[in-house]
């Protein structure tokens, strides 16, 4: 039975979440191509260099926060309904959706005000050129912070709907193991609750009252630390849904089944434990933080490699099993037997391949002292366009080719465009990201409209600066084309008429090694949450206490316009 007929209410919810996500993707991609052409100097006619930062803020907020959060809310709603075989609690889920949408609109209006001359609204200039990290004391319109808070609170309530489903299912199935998809989703949400406390305190306790003038100053190091308490786990909030797809859907698309359910659970528990006490690795070169705390964060970060390395094994093993079921043979010959013309499959595989490259550049970022070489250079966005910009985004697009037909009941339209799309994205990202990494090694900074200076010129270490710029611009152009291809396929599918049998469904084969082989303790959320909290207290307790001890807003800065 098609998912939309089996769970019509949840399907409508997933469709609504996806529409917001795809609109955000389209606008964010448009800003992206303008930026790529602007900062490489190929074409600067769209915006002034001062307004570049408005688009940069919009690109980061719309893609890293809005596209991701809404897509994940949709994917998780499908995953919970599918694996627990029940509709999601409607009131909770829709409350979450409307809160998140209100927050998104508020933040988007505040950002776009910057393009329209920052008119005064409620006594504050309507602008938010503060980038998606919104470091104080740079001030945005209060609506931006209120919007950010609503998105976070909305995501909490979305999570509540998954817990309500789990509790209802549990009362009917007291002795059964939690189905894998729901296990992964609930583990991800527990990690999300723990980590979003940081940004919630930053925004609600400090930035909103400060931007309204209720408190005169905030401590920039404290608010920045609270941001990064959240800022690294958020990347796992993007990554874990991609892992859910790679573990639970990709093996089936490859023609096989998941290699090991127990190992998948171990991986998600490790993410719950280790995702948060690592934020100081974004502050390796911050003054005011003793070296010892940075070292603890570095050690935790390195161990966070473990779940991803285990995932690489399990996913490749599952896909190889699928290929052999399809008649694949040889050490590497089985790769030829995979369905590379299925965009859902090829997109996930290409995303996984790029994530491996992104993982290696992330090991450099995590290397506390070698990080000096690349901190805040173009290397860093080069890295995260491989992770959130491909591992997450390409997986999301790929799985939409498979999932959107099921939540609409309509066949995928423009299949040939869909088949080509993941490859266009892959080539575009390969060009853009390799050049960004190399530009970073040459010391070229990130987050700038014009990376050229009066006082000196950069010299490329590998390749020339002009060649890197060209690759970034061409890569950016291909990525924009790929985003448009994806959105065109989605729009046509959405507007098509229902008819005929779908070639996809949400029935899954059992894993080779099932839940019956995994220790029950893995499902003990209380235990893992408690251990996660202890690790956070060790990593964050002493430094936060030191920052608070000298006065909560001391040393303090008043709001400063951009």
């Amino acid at each position, binding site marked *: 039975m098609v998912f939309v007929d089996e769970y019509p209410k949840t399907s409508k919810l997933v469709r609504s979440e996806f529409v917001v996500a795809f609109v955000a993707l389209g606008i964010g991609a448009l800003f992206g191509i303008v930026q790529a052409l602007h900062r490489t100097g190929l074409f600067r006619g769209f915006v002034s*260099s*001062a307004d570049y*930062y408005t688009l940069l803020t919009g690109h980061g907020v719309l893609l890293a926060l809005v596209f991701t959060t809404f897509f994940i809310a949709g994917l998780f709603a499908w995953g919970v309904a599918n694996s627990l075989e029940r509709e999601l609690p409607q009131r909770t889920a829709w409350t979450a959706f409307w809160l998140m949408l209100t927050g998104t609109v508020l933040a988007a209006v505040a950002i776009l005000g910057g393009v329209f001359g920052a008119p005064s609204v409620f006594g504050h200039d309507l602008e938010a*050129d503060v*980038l998606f990290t919104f*470091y104080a*004391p*740079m001030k945005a319109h209060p609506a931006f912070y209120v919007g950010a808070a609503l998105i976070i609170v909305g995501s909490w309530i979305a999570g509540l709907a998954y817990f309500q489903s789990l509790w209802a299912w549990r009362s009917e199935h007291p002795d059964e193991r939690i189905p894998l998809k729901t296990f992964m989703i609930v583990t991800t949400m527990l990690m999300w609750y723990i980590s979003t406390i940081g940004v919630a305190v930053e925004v609600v306790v400090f930035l909103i009252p400060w931007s309204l003038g209720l408190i005169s100053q905030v*401590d*920039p*190091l404290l608010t*920045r630390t609270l941001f990064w308490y959240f800022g690294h786990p958020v990347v796992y909030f993007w990554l874990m849904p991609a892992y859910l797809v790679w573990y639970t859907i990709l093996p089936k698309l490859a023609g096989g089944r998941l*290699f*090991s359910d*127990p*190992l998948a659970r171990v991986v998600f528990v490790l993410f719950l434990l280790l995702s948060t006490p690592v934020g100081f690795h974004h502050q*390796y*070169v*911050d*003054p*005011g*933080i003793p*070296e010892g705390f940075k070292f603890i964060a*570095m*050690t935790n970060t*390195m161990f966070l*490699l*473990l779940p991803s*390395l*285990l995932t690489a*094994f399990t996913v490749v*093993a599952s896909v190889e099993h699928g290929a052999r079921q399809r008649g694949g043979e040889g050490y590497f010959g089985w790769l030829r037997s995979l369905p590379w013309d299925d965009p859902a499959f090829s997109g996930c595989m290409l995303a996984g391949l790029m994530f491996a490259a992104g993982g290696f550049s992330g090991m450099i970022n995590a*290397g*506390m*002292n*070698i990080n*000096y070489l690349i*901190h*805040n*250079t173009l290397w860093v966005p080069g890295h995260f366009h491989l992770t959130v910009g491909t591992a997450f985004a390409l997986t999301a697009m790929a799985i939409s080719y498979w999932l959107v037909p099921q939540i609409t009941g309509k066949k995928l339209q423009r299949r040939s465009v869909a088949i080509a799309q993941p490859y266009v994205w892959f080539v575009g990202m390969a060009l853009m990201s390799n050049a960004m990494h190399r530009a970073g090694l040459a*010391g070229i*900074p990130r*987050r*700038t*409209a*014009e990376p050229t*200076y*009066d*006082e*000196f010129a*950069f010299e490329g270490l590998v390749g020339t600066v002009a060649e890197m710029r060209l690759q970034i611009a061409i890569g950016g152009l291909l990525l924009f084309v790929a985003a448009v291809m994806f959105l065109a396929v989605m729009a046509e599918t959405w507007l098509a008429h229902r008819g005929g049998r779908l070639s996809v469904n949400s029935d899954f084969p059992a894993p080779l090694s099932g839940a019956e*082989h*995994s220790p029950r303790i893995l499902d003990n959320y209380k235990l893992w949450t408690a251990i996660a909290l202890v690790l956070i207290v060790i990593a964050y307790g002493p430094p936060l206490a030191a920052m608070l001890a*000298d006065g909560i807003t*001391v*040393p303090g*800065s008043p709001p*400063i*316009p*951009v």
Partner: protein
Amino acid sequence: MQVHNFEKVWLGAALLLIVGFIATISYGTVGAGVAMVDDSGGQIDPQAVQSGETGTTFDDPGIVKENESHYVVYVVAQQFQFVPGSGDNPIRVPANTLVTFKVTSADVLHGFAITETNINTMVIPGQVAEVTARFDETGTYGLVCHEYCGAGHHTMGGSVEVVPESQYNATEVTN
């Protein structure tokens, strides 16, 4: 719990890689002496930096000679320049001599990176970033603000001129 033999080997190799990374970084810290930017620079009132009333060298930033082999460079980063460092006011320091940079902000977050070197720190209002280095090679190095600091961020650069020890004129030192 069943774990496939291949998977056990993979797990062992992964753990070895992780421990190896931590070991090399520890060596970099303890053996090679790569110090991290930390809290050694202390705190400062950012609003006093803005008004020039800190009662410290940051009120008139520049180069202080500690002794023959150690100079301290005080730099104030502000929207959108380094003082000293930007425009026709480059930071001039001698080669083969210990140079400590003390950098703080008069307004928002900034970055302070010297190209082709490991000198790279955040500049956070309220904190003094402290970095000590020795330049082996003479020449002009680029100075970059690498954290977004506002509408003119892309204009915030500068330069560091490293001159031979013998040619370094102590009268250039401002304090």
